[in-house]
């Protein structure tokens, strides 16, 4: 076993009542990495994380955390991981401090011993330590759950959609907390449906329908977008998508905020003919501009390529 590897999976598969949730996933994650599993609902993110944290047994294939097998060595794994499920799972009728003490106690440690690890996060909710967990706001619950997952100083932290339904500012703050934890040498696995969070990770795996479509550093994933991407606007945005889709050089067109994205067949040199074509369809003030793809554009491009 490579000592630099924190998490490894080999041909993991899982199905529920004949529906494939995971199809033969294999990957390795280095120690100290902040790794993102990015994909929509139903891509298999939660099933994968639950196999890794030993709560779910795969139909076939193997996985290990810090060299421990997720099926045979599950007791050891549970001691060295911290897990924050997607649904808030702390005791709603215990106070903030009681929840934290409870989790510290289970792992035979104390809040004092590992306070340095959670200080940055817990200090935000410490003023409310006598409040019941059920009465906290969403953002505070999230901070408490993260504190509880960290209090035993895990080697690997597994977070299932910690930012879903959280507003853009709080999401940014949460990722800043994760960056700080990474500096404490904790390997962090995060799943998220928000594509724009990819750039916060050292490496990401784009997941779709139980498979990893692409796995790389965020910058490299952008480079894997080996086509041109153009932004198109006109005075008739509603009709524009249909008209562009009918253009002979269009490989793919989709709406993106206030403009359309056009992926042309090959290198695009038909700017003038596209504008002329759109004008025959009644569009005016057509604006064309080559733009840089985002992770979401890459995801769309990969999805399209694999269909």
């Amino acid at each position, binding site marked *: 076993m490579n000592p630099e590897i924190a998490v490894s999976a080999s041909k993991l598969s899982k199905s529920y009542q004949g529906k494939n949730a995971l199809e033969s996933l294999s990957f390795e994650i280095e120690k100290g990495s902040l790794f993102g599993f990015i*994909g*929509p*609902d*139903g*891509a298999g993110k939660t099933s994968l994380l639950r196999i890794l944290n030993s709560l779910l047994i795969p139909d076939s294939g193997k996985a290990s955390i810090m060299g421990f097998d997720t099926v045979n060595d599950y007791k050891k794994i549970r001691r060295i991981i911290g897990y924050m499920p997607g649904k808030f799972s702390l005791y709603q009728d215990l106070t903030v401090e009681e929840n934290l003490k409870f989790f510290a106690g289970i792992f035979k440690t104390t809040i004092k011993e590992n306070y340095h690890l959670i200080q940055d996060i817990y200090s935000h909710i410490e003023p409310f330590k006598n409040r019941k967990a059920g009465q906290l*706001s*969403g*953002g505070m619950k999230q901070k408490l759950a993260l504190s509880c997952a960290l209090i035993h100083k895990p080697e690997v932290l597994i977070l299932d959609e910690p930012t*879903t*339904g*959280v*507003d*853009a*500012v*709080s*999401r*940014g703050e949460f990722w800043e907390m994760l960056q700080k934890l990474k500096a404490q040498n904790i390997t962090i696995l995060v799943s998220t*449906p*928000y*594509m*724009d969070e990819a750039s916060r990770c050292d490496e990401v795996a784009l997941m*779709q329908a139980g498979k990893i479509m692409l796995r790389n550093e965020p910058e490299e994933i952008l480079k894997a977008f080996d086509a041109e991407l153009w932004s198109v606007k006109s005075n008739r*945005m*509603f009709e524009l*998508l249909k008209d562009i889709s009918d253009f002979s050089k269009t490989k793919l067109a*989709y*709406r*993106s*905020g*206030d403009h359309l994205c056009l992926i042309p067949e090959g290198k695009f040199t038909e700017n003038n003919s596209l504008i002329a074509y759109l004008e025959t369809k009644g569009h005016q003030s057509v604006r064309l501009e080559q733009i840089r793809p985002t992770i*979401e554009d890459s*995801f*769309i491009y990969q*999805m*399209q390529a694999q269909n």
Partner: protein
Amino acid sequence: MKPVIEVENLVKKFGDFVANDSLSFSVFPGEIFGFLGANGAGKTTAIKILCGLSAPTSGKASVAGFDVYRQSEQIKKNIGYMSQKFSLYEDLTINENFQFYGGIYGLSRKVIRERTAALLSRLQFLDAKNEVLRNIPQGWKQKLAFSVAVMHQPKVVFLDEPTGGVDPITRRQFWELIYEQANQGTTIFVTTHYMDEAEYCGRVSIMVDGRIEALDTPEQLKKQFAVSSMNDVFVKLARAPK
């Protein structure tokens, strides 16, 4: 053009806590209006009032021409509502879900049949109408939920984080549906945590601590705050020192 939603100095208090602090805005027919704000900023409180589910503490508000204090039942008949959390019944078929919601809104069997066929054929989903909802992929459920929410041809549709967790292609198809609906004159009132989706809206308001701190087209807001994305506008406003 007469606004379809008119709000003036709207206040909602819970005890001493001011959840909505003197909101004023208008939304016009066929407009796609983005209603943004951080968690806890007061969006849900305002939406509940506009849907006729909660009365304001003071101020004026009307939706589809009906007053929120006195005509909440008429409001409910003239709006559609969809959220990611509650949508359709999992153990009914697609067709049964349409029948059920059409029945609630008092549509005749004939009208329900016609509109179900029209809405499903728009989604190219007519062949699947006898499928039980449980077996339908999440992205499709959201498109179906939207179709159900507009079946009674409401003047306004409230969409509360309609696209959470959906893959980017389906998300774009969903927005295509929204555009089409707005193009037919339906007003769309939408909340989202995807800041890039704010750019799909005609105008956007941003709530901070119970107040509307900004309201304009995405283009103007980006100009006003001298930033290049709606995400930056949002961060600047929500993180501004109080």
